[in-house]
């Protein structure tokens, strides 16, 4: 009798989860597996589908366009994520301090986060406009350069514009995460430190930073994965240009799909998927490891 009932409870429990599992299976897991399978085929519009094993991956290895997009994506992560973490932490410290304007400031910081990347991409495209954009107006007003900078027409300028656009949109998200971490630090610790005559720098280095470590790992994980798969901003702001120099892996895969080469695009997507997956497993491991030690 008892066993029967617990079995029924179990069944009922799983029935609560079943719709979620079904939707994720149908629209996430099956597509990912489908993409992995497609990557083993030559699948080009108007041609018969043919199994070619690792053929697409072999082509990737010798494809300069793929190597360029891999290089760009890694550089983009390395440039934007540290900036976002530093700026996000600074914002969080500013937002955490009690002040009459705290609510207004928090609302301000949320705005870039809420704006669609397609919109901020267009806005940054205008900011970077050669003839009359805000960026050239400012650098010439301040006197940083003699003439206007060709932001989107040069490899370095386009890269810089993308990093700026990404930092603008996502530093606020990082700030919100750090803000929650800061609020969780007990005030007593700071009071005790004040009694011990610890200065503000010491308090920050000895209390704030170590206690923010778990939040730091979460923010680093989220931001790295998001920057790795960057698509929206690149698609709108530079469209991968100039000369394909800012094509992210997501955009490279998308371009293969829209060009009708589903097998090749799938291989690009699988590589990106594997990089993202490996990194997230690594971060979670490192995060746990740290928690056990401390």
């Amino acid at each position, binding site marked *: 009798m008892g066993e029967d009932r617990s079995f029924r409870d179990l069944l009922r429990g799983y029935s609560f989860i079943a719709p979620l599992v079904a939707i994720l299976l149908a629209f996430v897991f099956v597509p990912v597996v489908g993409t992995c399978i497609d990557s083993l085929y030559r699948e080009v519009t108007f041609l018969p589908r043919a199994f070619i094993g690792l053929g697409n991956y072999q082509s990737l290895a010798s494809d300069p366009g793929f190597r360029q997009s891999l290089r760009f994506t890694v550089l983009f992560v390395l440039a934007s994520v540290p900036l976002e973490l530093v700026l996000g932490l600074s914002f969080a410290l500013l937002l955490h301090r009690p002040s009459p304007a705290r609510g207004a400031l928090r609302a301000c910081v949320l705005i870039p986060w809420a704006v669609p990347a397609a919109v901020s991409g267009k806005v940054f495209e205008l900011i970077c406009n050669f003839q009359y954009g*805000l960026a050239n107006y400012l650098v010439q007003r301040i006197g940083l350069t003699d003439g206007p900078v060709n932001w989107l027409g040069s490899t370095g300028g386009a890269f810089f514009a993308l990093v700026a656009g990404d930092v603008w949109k996502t530093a606020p998200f990082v700030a919100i995460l750090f803000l929650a971490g800061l609020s*969780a630090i007990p005030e007593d610790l700071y009071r005790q430190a004040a009694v011990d005559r610890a200065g503000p720098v010491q308090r920050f280095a000895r209390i704030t930073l170590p206690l923010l470590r778990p939040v730091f790992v979460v923010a680093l994980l989220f931001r790295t994965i998001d920057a790795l798969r960057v698509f929206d901003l690149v698609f*709108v702001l530079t469209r991968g240009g100039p000369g394909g120099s800012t094509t992210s892996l997501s955009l490279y895969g998308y371009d293969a799909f829209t060009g009708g080469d589903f097998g090749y695009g799938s291989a690009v997507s699988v590589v990106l998927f594997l990089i993202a997956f490996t990194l997230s497993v690594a971060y979670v491991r490192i995060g746990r490891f740290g928690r056990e030690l401390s």
Partner: protein
Amino acid sequence: MNGERRIGMLHLAGAVAMTIFCLGPIVYMALTAMSHRPDFLAPGAGFAFTAAHFLEVLRTESLHFPEYFRNSLVVSGFSAAFSVSVAAPAAYAVTRLAIPGRVAVLFAVLAVSMFPQVSLVSYLFKLMSAMGWINTYAALVLPYTAWILPLSLWILTSYFSRVPRDIDRAALVDGCGPLEALWKVIVPVAAPGIFSTALLAFIFAFNELLFALMLTTDHRARTIPAGIALFEGLHGETPWGAVMAAATLTVVPVVALTLVFQRRIIQGLTRGAVKE
């Protein structure tokens, strides 16, 4: 004490810089939308107000902006509603019912949110083509629902786990089934949390671009981000006034939601990501 005061000044300067950094591009966008010419910063150009760009965006039929707007609201609204309705029972099961593997479910779902969208999109395109659903709301609502489910589950789980157990245990003792306990006890108590979750889900769906580009080919189901990304002038050159007017109109609902529900959004975002 002097040191503290210096820090106070630093904070003030920092707060001003932060505000300019966050709002500058938005103000510039709105000014360009309202300016007679986009080069109002150029020497001798000057700013002259006009509403023409807004009217152009709203009235030019070939731009389809009002349709994109409606599509975005419908698609994001349904996706958010479905995703929260599916995630709520799951969150209840994870926090309340003793089922083996519930932690595994949470982590599998977290892993899903790490997947790059590009690794799903070609299969989804083939699936939706086979179903004949390209350019319908279903082609976007189903993938969006799945895409925002991880977020919804994590945030709801965090909210539900804070509802005192005694409340729903009492309901169960009174003869309610688990579904009834969820609907009649937990949902009302956790209503603010459920609302926050739906709000975040809505914003995520509203901003999505890649699926929208790939799964729509015309204005019947195309959403605003895709519309703006593909915005092209009739004469080849980007009509900045009109683009920025469209961008400004797009930003109005998300910014309004953000300002009104600032606290809820911050709470929801951090509940999903940071365990306190």
